[in-house]
């Protein structure tokens, strides 16, 4: 893997000289430059200068390549994912002197190196005046251009290999039209280049947006960085993870189970390796011998596995803490300009930038174990963010008081109280939790041996506290600025959403709920999971609630002037079923 990079060629080829921005290329700024040493100092120096500031922010940068060290990392990354087949092929090939095997493995490795070379050779990115252009591909050329205004966040992450070489992966998140998400990924550039890119991209975007909202470019020109751009000086650390918090990993079921998942993967690999090895030797006369050996090996494996599981059970909390610490190492939440930045991770350091204006609210999550120690996690509700489960995390598991305090400083905490749902909801929760197992147990009592019925009756009994707890966690509330709904027991989620972010209401009601006067109210939000439900709320009360939050949206559809007094109208209970008003039209269905 010691190929030299191909001879340097001019950075800007004829095809790339015309840019999407439309202005003539600024001569000096567009001259070919060394890709390894991006002209960060000049760029930074030019920006704050009075008068030149405007042009500096609007000028296009030359097209850069990825770091040449990518030549090393990308084959290695490929290798990692195909490690097992390649190694098996190599071993099996050497063992039986199968030239096809050896040749195949060699070709595979050569292909990885070659593809790394091709990627590096063809990959170019360029920060233009209005868009980021990414070109790649030798045979399938692709050219992606991301408008800078559309960029929602710039993530920087690096795995140990990257960090050893001083590289980082930059992920640019952008919203494409129609709600889909389109990403640009630069894998990999040098760490300084990554930081510089983040600064430049966010500043240019802020600049573009700033001009949009405030049509006074003259005023904005002298302070292009200070207007809205995230400045290094404008940071405020909200939270740095104290050492004792790693202990909370013990309460998280996911982390308790991690060792088992790792173990399962390991066994999968081993058995796969065995299977492939077996496949290679099928024609052998020693097949029977091999099978015997394999069986012995298998029983040995089972014994080893049993011991391992025992050890794991003992060491599980330890494993949990370690694996939790690996991913959450030195979790930091800080504000940089108008964005929240969450950094974490020991081996792979991950940094996620969430713009404040994209944050629509937050979620507090906990499970019963965590609740005994009143610990919660904090997650942001952000528009246009993929993989929210890991990336929107703002705070790791920690004491509720502290988490809420940070949430209040970083965002806005919910101050209202949650309204309990009617008693009828309790019955429904209980029924849901108990009934399936109870029915199964009853059926088993008639059809199957007694122990099956008892086995099934146990979860039915366990369902009682579960149902009660589910009911207790139900609630919704409104504190004037934010709306909150809460549900769930094993995984209780309290979502807090800013009032303005609500883009619609949906009530759902089954026949059974209608008899009890209940309904599920879902508030649609163009962020996070899209909708948050208040389950089994009283129908009339929830209509009044929605009316309180967005009166202009709900009031025209109420049955009469006063919504709360329409409880006697069982047919639609609050929302009218008949049209009214002058500009309203109705339609039905043609049968």
């Amino acid at each position, binding site marked *: 893997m010691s190929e030299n990079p191909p001879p340097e060629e001019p950075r800007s080829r004829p095809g790339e000289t015309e840019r999407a921005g439309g202005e003539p290329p600024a001569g000096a700024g567009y001259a070919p430059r060394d890709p390894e040493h991006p002209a960060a100092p000049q760029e930074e120096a030019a920006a704050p200068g009075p008068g030149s500031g405007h042009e500096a922010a609007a000028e296009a940068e030359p097209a850069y390549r990825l770091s040449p060290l990518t030549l090393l990392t990308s084959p290695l990354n490929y290798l990692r994912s195909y490690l097992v087949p390649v190694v098996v092929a190599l071993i099996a090939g050497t063992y039986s002197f199968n030239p096809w095997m050896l040749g195949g493995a060699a070709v595979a490795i050569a292909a990885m190196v070659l593809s790394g070379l091709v990627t590096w050779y063809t990959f170019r990115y360029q920060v233009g005046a209005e868009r980021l252009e990414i070109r790649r591909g030798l045979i399938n050329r692709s050219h992606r251009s991301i408008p800078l205004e559309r960029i929602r966040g710039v993530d920087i992450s690096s795995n140990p290999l990257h960090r050893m070489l001083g590289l980082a992966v930059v992920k640019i998140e952008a919203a494409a039209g*129609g*709600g889909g998400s389109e990403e640009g990924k630069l894998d990999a550039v040098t760490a300084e280049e990554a930081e510089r890119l983040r600064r430049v991209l966010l500043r240019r975007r802020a600049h573009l947006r700033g001009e949009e909202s405030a049509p006074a470019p003259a005023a904005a020109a002298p302070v292009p960085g200070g207007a809205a751009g995230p400045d290094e000086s404008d940071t405020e650390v909200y939270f740095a993870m104290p050492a004792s918090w790693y202990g909370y990993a013990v309460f998280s079921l996911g982390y308790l189970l991690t060792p088992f998942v790792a173990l399962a993967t390991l066994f999968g690999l081993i058995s796969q390796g065995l299977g492939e090895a077996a496949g290679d030797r099928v024609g052998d006369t020693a097949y029977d011998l091999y099978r015997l050996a394999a069986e012995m090996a298998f029983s040995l494996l089972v014994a080893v596995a049993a011991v391992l599981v025992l050890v794991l059970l003992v060491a599980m909390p330890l494993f949990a803490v370690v694996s939790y610490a690996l991913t959450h190492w030195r979790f930091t939440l800080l504000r940089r300009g108008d964005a929240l930045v969450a950094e974490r991770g020991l081996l792979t350091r991950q940094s996620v930038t969430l713009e404040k204006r994209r944050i629509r609210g937050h979620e507090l999550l906990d499970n019963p174990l965590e609740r005994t120690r009143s610990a919660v996690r904090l997650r942001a509700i952000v*528009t*246009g963010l993929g993989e929210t489960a890991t990336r929107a995390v703002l705070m790791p598991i920690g004491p509720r008081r502290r988490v809420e305090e940070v949430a209040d400083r970083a965002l806005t905490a919910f101050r209202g109280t949650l309204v309990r749902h009617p008693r009828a909801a309790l019955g429904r929760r209980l029924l849901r939790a108990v009934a399936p197992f109870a029915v199964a147990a009853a059926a088993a009592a008639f059809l199957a041996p007694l122990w099956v019925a008892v086995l099934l009756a146990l979860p039915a009994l366990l369902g009682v506290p579960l149902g009660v707890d589910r009911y207790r966690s139900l609630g919704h509330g409104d504190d004037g600025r934010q709306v909150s709904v809460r549900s769930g027991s094993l995984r209780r989620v309290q979502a807090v959403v800013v009032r*303005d*972010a609500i*883009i*619609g*209401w*949906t*009530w*759902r*009601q*089954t*026949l059974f*709920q*209608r008899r009890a006067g209940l309904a599920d109210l*879902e508030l*649609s*939000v*163009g*962020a996070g999971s*899209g*909708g948050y439900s208040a389950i089994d709320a009283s129908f009339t009360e929830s209509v009044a609630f*929605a009316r309180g939050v*967005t009166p*202009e*949206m*709900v009031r*025209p*559809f109420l049955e009469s002037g006063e919504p709360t007094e329409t409880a006697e109208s069982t047919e*639609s209970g609050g*929302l009218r*079923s*008949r*049209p009214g*008003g002058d*500009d*309203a*039209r*109705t*339609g*039905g*269905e*043609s*049968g």
Partner: protein
Amino acid sequence: MWTLQAAIGSAVLLALLCAGAWGLRAVSWEWVPDWLLRNAWWLPVLYAAYAAVRTVVVPRWRYRVHRWEVTADVVYTRVGWFSRQWQLVPVSRIQTVDHRQGWMERLFGVATLEVQTASHAGSSTIEGLGAADAQRISEELAERAAELRDDAT
């Protein structure tokens, strides 16, 4: 139209079930218990009864529940039969307005209007509008949405 749709759907499924039952008898794998073979024809019969009810009752029920209303600012729909759903979508948050006509809908001269917002949960559809109405309303809505559009998604 719902009746016809349900009828066709039921007929196809019924045919499949009959074929399945017949096939089961014909093949007679040894692992299939005997009582199942003998009673295989019950399944299609039960389903036929259910399908008849569904074809006759459900569309009427749905038609009775089905309401929609478009004001200057909000689109309101009420759909469902067994479980009902009320939905309010403010026009200012609408992102796209589609109107669609399947082959059966064209036969009956109706159309479906689909209103989409940034949240998948906040998108609503109005089925069975008159085709001309759907066209007009979708245009009006799109215009109005562009007028009222605010930046917040």
